[in-house]
């Protein structure tokens, strides 16, 4: 167990008091407001709170993925942002949660609701990701996020002849531990290697399918009611790497290393002492999990994605917030876990990275 020294002794702890998640499913027939309404309702119920106790809202969504101008308009009513403060972070949902934590630390608010949504089924999500690439140098080549993942995987597999087999085995293992009803069924390593190559060396069986989902989390400086193991957000950090693939060392997730260092500094944890019992990374491909373990120096003492992580499917923008929720549930439900790490990423080959460190209070 690690010693936690709060860098600022009078800093108010941030509790994650409510969580709610909808999906991911391949296609949710409901509208975005309906999906987010359900997730928010679950989170509020879990927190035993009503909208009247929420001081502000932070949402995560991307206009182009939603096909809507200022797409947070669609959720204003269902997140309870009418006549209230709402800001939208247009990146992964975990980044929105981190911003919400900043709002709490700033003492502007006591309780903040975070909500994220994404529906990959609405569009050709993969081709929409081209519009996030440098329009002068990269987009004209039809580079998209999947291709960038392939480039990163290729850089890693370079001199590593066993990489593909290892990745296939990891993908199979993670899919096998996914909940029933997940987007992608369990699959054997052989079947992964036999599946079509989508962006060499990534086979289809190695790529997490993207679907529809919504998630919501309630963060508060007010301690939750007794009766359940409470979970605190003790450290956070995020980072943006360089955009052009050639400007980065593709064999590492350096940005994640920086994000984690910042999160540890924020939490007052010296890295030699740090033991993470549970890690919930946002990895869409097996090579990303290896990058994650390397950047976070995660060894065998850490349980990684006991519920399968994202490998069985996720929704864009929601993923990191869903990881935060998984980490919270893991800490609540397992007395052996004390420290957890939730991870979010966005952009090509993990260009944007976010880390939240959680601790269960006994």
């Amino acid at each position: 167990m690690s010693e936690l020294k709060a860098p600022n002794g009078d800093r108010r702890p941030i509790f994650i008091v409510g969580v709610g998640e909808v999906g991911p499913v391949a296609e949710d027939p409901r509208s975005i407001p309906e999906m987010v309404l359900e997730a928010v309702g679950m989170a509020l119920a879990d927190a035993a709170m009503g909208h009247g106790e929420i001081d502000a809202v932070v949402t995560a969504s991307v206009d182009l993925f939603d096909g809507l101008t200022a797409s947070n308009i669609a959720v204003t009513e269902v997140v309870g942002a009418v006549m209230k403060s709402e800001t939208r972070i247009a990146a992964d949902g975990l980044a929105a949660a981190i911003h919400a934590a900043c709002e709490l630390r700033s003492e502007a608010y006591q309780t903040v609701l975070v909500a994220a949504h994404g529906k990959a089924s609405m569009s050709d999500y993969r081709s929409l990701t081209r519009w996030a690439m440098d329009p002068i140098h990269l987009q004209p080549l039809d580079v998209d996020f999947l291709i960038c993942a392939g480039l990163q995987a290729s850089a890693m597999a370079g001199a590593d002849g066993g990489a593909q087999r290892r990745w296939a085995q990891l993908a199979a293992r993670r899919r096998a531990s996914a909940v029933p009803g997940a987007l992608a069924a369990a699959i054997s390593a052989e079947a992964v290697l036999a599946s079509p190559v989508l962006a060499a060396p990534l086979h289809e069986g190695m790529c997490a399918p993207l679907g529809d989902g919504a998630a919501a989390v309630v963060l508060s400086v007010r301690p939750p009611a007794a009766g359940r193991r409470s979970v605190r957000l003790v450290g956070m950090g995020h980072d943006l790497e360089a955009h052009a693939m050639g400007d980065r060392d593709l064999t590492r997730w350096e940005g994640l290393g920086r994000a984690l260092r910042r999160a540890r500094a924020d939490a007052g944890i010296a890295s030699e002492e740090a033991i993470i019992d549970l890690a919930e990374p946002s990895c869409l491909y097996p090579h990303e999990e290896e990058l994650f373990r390397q950047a976070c120096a995660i060894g065998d003492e850490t349980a990684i994605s006991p519920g399968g992580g994202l490998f069985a499917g996720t929704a864009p923008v929601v993923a990191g917030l869903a990881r935060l929720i998984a980490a919270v549930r893991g800490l609540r439900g397992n007395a052996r876990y004390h420290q957890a790490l939730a991870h979010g990423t966005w952009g090509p080959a993990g260009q944007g990275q976010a880390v939240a460190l959680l601790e269960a209070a006994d």
Partner: protein
Amino acid sequence: MRHVAIIGTGQTDYASNRSDASQPELVREAAKAAIADAGLRPQQIDAVLISNMELFEGRALPELWLGEAAFAAGKPCLKVATGGTSGTSACISGFHQVASGLFDVVLVVGLEKHSEGQTQTGMALTDPFWDRAVAAGALGNFALSISQYMAERGVTERQAAMVAVKARRNAARNPHAHLKMPALTVDEVLASRPLAHPIRLLDMCPQSDGACAIVIAAEKPARRLCPRPAWVKASATRHEQPYIGDIDRRLVTMRTLRDAARGVYERAGIRDPLHDFDVAEIYEPVSYAELAWYEALGFCREGEAGRLIEDGVTAMDGELPVNPSGGVLSSNPVGASGVIRVAEAALQIHGRGGERQVEGVRTALVTGYGVYAWADVVVLGAQP
């Protein structure tokens, strides 16, 4: 909230087509200027926030591409987008991030390059089952609200034209402004091309290319670096129901702006806005809106806004100069417009207003506006 202050600002020149610079170059120009104005080097920025309505340029996650231009590579960098309030929302998010103690210095950069996109198409992606049934755009929607405002409060086209004249004449003394018209007259505004009754071309804001940046610092570095920091005294945000028809007589009531202002005034100790503020940079997408905001912000009683503009109360030499920068009516890169309001108010307190400097500014009001009736309100002061 812990004390935070704006210690530097930077702006590009605004124009309908900045073909001389790419989007990253515009971001870099503003960021570099703001960081230098703050007396810092880029390495000393702890985190970056970008404000951009990227759908207008047909993009997604623009900070991935533009982050480096804002010196954000290897740093925490997020993007805020909330329609027209993106800029003020990003600045308020920056205040929260610095006040959180997580960062000592945060750079906020707002950008829009309308000439590189199809803004009309971007704005047309409204609710496909409802709003898209009618082709009105922001123009038609403002005109509808204006018909109600005129009917209830009795403002005239002439009074609105005075607002348009004030804006463009003020802009003539702002080296960055897009529409500089030092000799614009009310008659010229009234003779300009009709767009949507009663709005005429010169009543409306332009679409501009450009970027604007501010540097926000925590108290210790602010005092060390800046001789006259612009302290954030209070800020508030209010969003609204999603359809124009939900909002009862929008320009007349504007409950979001009124409620945000009320809360901010209370926390900032403002009792008599007209006299307590030395300058105001308010987000006015159309001339009539500025009149409506005078009433909503408590500069005058309901129905008195026309008299206020006629009496020159909000002119540069009036009791409360409104928009010495020329406002959104003179320069409007949407993702940057809210940042410009904050930057212009801050530089008034910094004493860096040049020809548009109002004398002795100690307290400044900033507002942001977007979507149908979203509102941000910020008060800056020479003392924390």
